[in-house]
């Protein structure tokens, strides 16, 4: 609390990665823009271009590959599911390999399945890589100051979300309490279910008294000042530009190479 702090907003840590220089809003926007080619087309080429571009991009921004792969692990487990469904029920076309009534495996359904597989990764990557380390407070600042979303909702939600950071501690305390009260010998599943319910109840209680505390500190209107100002910078502009180019490129490539397959 020395004079060094005076007049300065505390920053978490000096930005070492390029990623930390981006406004949280940009991080969200990148993910959203990348959705566009993935939603309007279901072909393998555009999905593959998006995926490669994303991968390159996040590595450039300073995300570590092993870390990324670890967080993508669940996707490796579930991605084949969507592909399987598409292979079996995709609209048939081309050579038919298997025909069991509703299930028709054809060239076209197989191609679609391949596209779906790549697509799942392309969809999941930005959310995981760009948002994983995001500070909710910073995002809230950006949403309210740049997007001008109502401060009441943004900050109310932020405060509610913070409760969840306490879930791990709460879970432990809840377990200790149940053990101390003689309720700790139940089967694992039953205990788990009743503790999960207890956790929800506790979070709701906390949320309720938290709302009171917020109002006691003058919270309630949409008009307020901001101790930390959230701004868009040149880095954000460049990142957005690259993203837009990539998205457009993916669609163009699909058109040029005629793999485009607009849904419907």
């Amino acid at each position, binding site marked *: *609390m020395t004079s060094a*702090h*005076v*007049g*300065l*907003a*505390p*920053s*978490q840590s000096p930005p070492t990665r390029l990623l930390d220089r981006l406004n949280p809003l940009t991080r969200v926007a990148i993910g959203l823009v990348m959705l566009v080619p993935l939603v309007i087309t279901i072909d393998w080429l555009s999905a593959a271009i998006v995926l490669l571009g994303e991968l390159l991009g996040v590595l450039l921004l300073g995300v570590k590959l092993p870390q990324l792969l670890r967080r993508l692990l669940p996707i490796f487990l579930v991605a084949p599911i969507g592909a399987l469904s598409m292979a079996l029920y995709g609209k048939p076309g081309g050579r038919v390999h298997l025909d069991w009534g509703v299930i028709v495996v054809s060239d076209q359904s197989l191609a679609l399945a391949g596209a779906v597989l790549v697509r799942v990764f392309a969809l999941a990557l930005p959310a995981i890589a760009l948002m994983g380390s995001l*500070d*909710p*407070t910073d995002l809230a600042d950006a949403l309210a100051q740049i997007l001008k979303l109502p401060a009441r909702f943004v900050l109310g939600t*932020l*405060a509610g979300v*913070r409760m969840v*950071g*306490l879930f791990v*501690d709460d879970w432990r*305390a*809840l377990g*200790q*309490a*149940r*053990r*101390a*009260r*003689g*309720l*700790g*010998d139940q089967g*694992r599943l039953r205990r788990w279910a009743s503790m999960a319910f*207890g956790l929800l109840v*506790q979070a709701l*209680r*906390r949320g309720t*008294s*938290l709302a*009171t*505390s*917020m*109002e*006691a*500190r*003058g*919270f*309630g*209107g949409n*008009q*307020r*000042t*901001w*101790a*930390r*100002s959230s701004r868009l910078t040149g880095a954000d502009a460049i990142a957005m530009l690259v993203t837009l180019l990539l998205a457009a490129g993916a669609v163009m490539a699909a058109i040029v190479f005629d793999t485009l397959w607009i849904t419907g």
Partner: protein
Amino acid sequence: MITAESWGWRHAGRKAWAVRNLDLTIDPGERVLLLGASGSGKSTRLPALAGVLGSADEGESTGTMLVKGKHPTRQKGLVALVQQDPEAAVVLHRVGDDVAFGLENLQVPPDQIWPRVSESLEAVGLDVALNRPTSALSGGQKQRLALAGAIAMHAEVLLLDEPTANLDPEGIDEVRGAVGRLVADRRTTLIVVEHRVQVWADLVDRVVVLARDGGLLADGPPLEVFHRHRDALLEAGVWVPGAPLPVDGDGFVPRDHPTAPDSADFADPVARNHHERLLTTADLTIGRHAQHPVQRHLDLTIPAATSTVVTGPNGVGKSTLALTLAGLLEPLSGEVIAAPAIRPPAARRSLMRRVSPPHPITWRSRDLLTRIGTVFQQPEHQFVAATVADEIAVGLRALGTPTAEVTARTDELLEVLHLTRLARANPFTLSGGEKRRLSVGTVLATQPAVILLDEPTFGQDRNTWAELVRLVRASVDEGRAVVSVTHDQAYLSVLAQHRIALTGGPDRHDDEATTPGRAGAPR
């Protein structure tokens, strides 16, 4: 500044009014100490003044209460409130942001915010980095944070609900000093609720005592009130300064450290004497995380038929020690050993883990009930039932006690704890002091051989305090070991038979160079 005319409030779902017939005027710059028995409606009144008591959905009000001529809900920001539970007061993730929160809401220009944040943190003596996560603060530190958030607002009225309840003596001085400096210029109106009158008696210029059935019991300058209404106040449970403690100290002299060896033949707790060591620790290191041991190399004994007290500054690891002794937290190294007399049968095995009779952490949950009972520092952490009566009955039912006996025992405890009229209320809607008493009751119900109490008397008025002390003494007389973690000097003066004083600062965790915390018996 503040005027109340026959004001009253009844919480939704309650028959009784929490506050009734309140007539009161407080002038700008006045410093008021608000007293009253536990459950007399003090904590209801403060949010009402701050305009955050809630809408018609949440209760019913009568009469009027105005702040500067307007309804409190139209005067937000004029009144700053620090609630009874500091846990609930933390809004944001980082310390600095949290203090700044109120200033932003008041539309203070950004360039003035950070200086004011630093200033208030300094005023309450909370010396941590601005970006420190608020969840990593100890109970006492959170209380300071809440106060800093309120001070920073430079509100015209400052309302404090038991601001020193969880603080060590040093912390109490600091908080009192900070508040004193803030109100020194007489521009801030102060209303503070606190059972321990002594702390604030010199600072305030008016004492208002709420009567149990609504209205006021006394109102006036401190000396006059305490002198003139002494008997009525004592009767109502107010801690009148200078009055003797409500229990006598006879028969509870400090005892020698027990030296006799463990004796295995006292199956009946009543037969135990204070030479039997129910729990011992051997080279015990404790902490919530392996990387952060808070106390090392503890060799402690918990004697039967004795009241043991654990003292030490905020954050030193008292609660951690209690949880470890209770078989709820795994020791980081070393062990907690239970005396043969209280070990559960070795044959019983639960599916998940092996029971090792000497080590409480391995016991089944039901075995703990009659052997080691724990009252948590935060009473809410402990509640598992929907009504007060059920809360007490839970442990008895888990033991398979016959229904008639459960009812009888529950009723008896509710009576002693002054909770009978709240038997069907939800535990979470109780007042701070009521919650504390209920959580103590839940443990006493199953009559464990060792009882661990973490701050058993916080938030208690003089009468309920005396009841609690009597209950603890009765348990000790029955041969149980009672271990109390406490900052309460009065409690220490009548119950410190055996004392464990933990030392060492909270922030020396993984710092090998400094001396680790030590336990000793100063008497």
